[in-house]
């Protein structure tokens, strides 16, 4: 069981951090929460560890967001913008461009309904359709429909923002 969990940790840790980052928008906090998820998994020894890990990650992220809003401590969450991050390997221009892209993708993601967001992020985290269905309460057949809609809306929202930005520049 511990070996299974160790293997899952090696293969899934980064995906869980990305999943959490897209919910709490703080890289350090995302890593802390991801580690907390795996420490809890050791205590609980879940039957389906992969789905369990993402379910607990989603719950922790929700609790974190609630606590942050309640205490008015996490300003980036209140402003609904990603936290500024240091990327030493990028040039200043590339950093600005990356930051702009990130904001646009974040806004495009915020255009999606919470259900579409959840399904898309779980799929990107590597969960299978049955695992997503179990987590979200959707029928397995509905996962494909939701995912199709979410992908289309994300890309459309992002392209709209690109057009809007080009129009405002010209």
């Amino acid at each position, binding site marked *: 069981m*511990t070996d299974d969990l*160790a293997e899952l*940790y*090696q293969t899934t*840790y*980064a995906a869980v*951090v*990305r999943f959490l*980052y*897209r919910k709490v928008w703080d*890289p350090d906090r*995302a*890593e802390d929460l991801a*580690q907390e998820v*795996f*420490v809890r998994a*050791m*205590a609980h020894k879940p039957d389906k560890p992969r789905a369990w890990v993402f379910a607990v990650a989603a719950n922790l992220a929700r609790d974190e967001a609630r606590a942050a809003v309640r205490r008015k401590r996490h300003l980036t969450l209140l402003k609904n913008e*990603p936290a500024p*991050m*240091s*990327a030493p*390997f990028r040039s200043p221009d590339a950093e600005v461009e*990356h930051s702009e*892209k*990130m904001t646009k*993708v*974040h806004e*495009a*993601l915020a255009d999606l309904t919470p259900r579409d967001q959840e399904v*898309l*992020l779980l*799929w*990107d985290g590597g969960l*299978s*359709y049955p695992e997503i269905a179990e987590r979200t309460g959707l029928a*397995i*057949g509905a*996962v*494909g*429909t939701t*995912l*199709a809609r979410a*992908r*289309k809306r*994300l*890309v459309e929202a*992002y392209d709209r923002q690109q057009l809007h930005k080009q129009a405002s520049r010209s």
Partner: protein
Amino acid sequence: MTDNSFINKRHVPEEELHAYLDQALSRSQCVEIESHLAVCAPCRERRDDIAALRDRTTALLSILAPPTIHTPPFAELRRRHVERSARRQRIIRRSAWAASILMALGFGWGARTFAQGDIEASAAAEELPAAPVELAARHRPCQSRSANQRGRTRPRPARSTNIHP
């Protein structure tokens, strides 16, 4: 063959193409879809569009990621888990100690109260011959009260014996 000819007549729904590309279908469903795609150019075109949409979504989401992800060694997490379990055990043990001490104190207090009550009762029993009326009154308050009440009642006037003719 009949199944294939049936499948070849209808186009594959969009969500099924997504599920097909996500490898979320059974082997038999994949075979059905592939046999349809082999003969249906519009569905092949849609499959390519959906594949492009899928890749684009993945690329966009990959932008939303922390710049670096430091994966601590698994042993570090295991150490945290062991520490946490030990802390929880300590708390449980201390709580059990506190509960047993409280129970012992409560039991002791109860026993003392009970014993004191016994001593007072026996002392009262010993004093009973010295003041039998008072003690008897104290131990039978209802009777004594009714007796008092009886004592306080005014004597009724004597009923007249005159009988009117």
